[in-house]
């Protein structure tokens, strides 16, 4: 074989190896993103499971806060029915807001505040909020790495040729920017 042919083969080999590495990193990225998403789901489900317990406890002490309790229930069912990333992010925010208002109002019910059940639930829920925040962060940083590979050259063009598409960040578009209305 002539040297030109050898050089050509080496170059083709290098390009193939590079394309392979791009494909593999994107494919691995997708698997990581899926896993991170199910991590968020696990925390969301834990919260959804605890909420009825909380509602029952609060109902016992604060019968007048029907409106707030209804908000929490509504937000919870919207989270249970959410499927896309957008819907989940939005419902998650709604539920967090509703729970925040509920805990704020509970300050004016000393019996409720002293209830051991309530305190335990409050601690659990605040821990779950932290876990949701961290799992969102982990998911988003995986999405960031993956989208970055798809954005830069030349891995981006190669990736799109292979059929990979951008993934969504876990964030709600509209609801977060609205100011929170606190009524006393």
């Amino acid at each position, binding site marked *: 074989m002539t040297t030109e042919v050898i050089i050509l083969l080496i170059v083709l080999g290098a390009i193939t190896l590079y394309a392979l590495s791009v494909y593999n990193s994107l494919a691995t990225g997708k698997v*990581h993103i899926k896993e*991170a998403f199910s*991590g968020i789901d696990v925390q969301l489900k834990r919260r959804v499971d605890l909420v009825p317990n909380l509602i029952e406890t609060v109902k016992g002490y604060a019968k007048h806060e029907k409106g707030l309790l209804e908000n929490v229930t509504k937000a919870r069912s919207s989270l249970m029915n959410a499927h896309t990333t957008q819907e989940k992010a939005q419902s998650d925010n709604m539920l967090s807001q509703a729970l925040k208002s509920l805990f704020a109002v509970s300050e004016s019910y000393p019996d409720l505040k002293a209830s051991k059940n309530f305190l335990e639930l409050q601690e659990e829920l605040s821990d779950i909020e932290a*876990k949701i925040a961290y*799992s969102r962060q*982990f998911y988003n940083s*995986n999405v960031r790495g993956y989208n970055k590979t798809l954005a830069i050259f030349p891995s981006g063009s190669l990736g799109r040729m292979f059929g990979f598409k951008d993934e969504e960040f876990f964030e709600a578009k509209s609801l977060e920017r609205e100011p929170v209305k606190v009524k006393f």
Partner: protein
Amino acid sequence: MLFVTTVVFVYGKASGYGLSYVGIGLIISGIMGISSYYYSDKMILGMSGAKQIQKEDNPVLFRTVENLCIGAGIPMPRIYIIKDSAINAFATGRDPKHSVVCVTTGILDRLNKIELEGVIAHELSHVRNYDIRLMSIVVILVGLVALLADFFMRSLWFGGRRDRSSSGNSQGIFLLIGIALAILSPLIATLIQLAVSRKREFLADASGSLLTRYPEGLASALEKISADKEPLEVANNATAHLYIANPFKGKARHNWLTNLFNTHPPIAERIRILRSM
């Protein structure tokens, strides 16, 4: 790159004097290094008198570690507590699946939740960045260099070298260089090891801050640590490099030369870098 330099440097010296020595040296150093790597967690825990805790024993600590592991996407390490009022912490373990994080009761008493998060994030980053594995390899290489230097000096003393292939003049020069290297190389290798250790400390600070998205937490914890004059009782030279801050207090560290021999970068500089993020 430092390793490549070190290894090439070692082979360069050894090639004139028989590769078999390198082989023996590598095996001995390797066995010591690898066994310390695999048992690193048991060894240091044994030496430090640490007690493992479960969720019920300290929910705040447990939850903090748990949440940060979710953020980092790594499995939870075993958590230990050392009874000592000095503020310090360390992490060890060859990979995230076999890792250990340990804090002193000093940390639990004196740092608030945000500062604790900063410290734990730093320790988890050591595990995530495979720093323990890295430092073990470095230690093996340093040990190798020291052993080879030793072998070389002994072979000179007993006046025998097996190969008679090199010519008269160049032999003499190599001999001189060889002696100089034999004396200096363990020192140079140790300095390299300490430099690597310092670099990885900075990296763990940065990775930890990326994890918590709040570098001020770690900065404020480091401030409290530097203000605390108490040395950690159970630490010794072998384990000092694993802790978050140099456990031997009470020595002035303003000198450029003493800084070269430090396993950790100066705390003031770490705080400055964190606050500028």
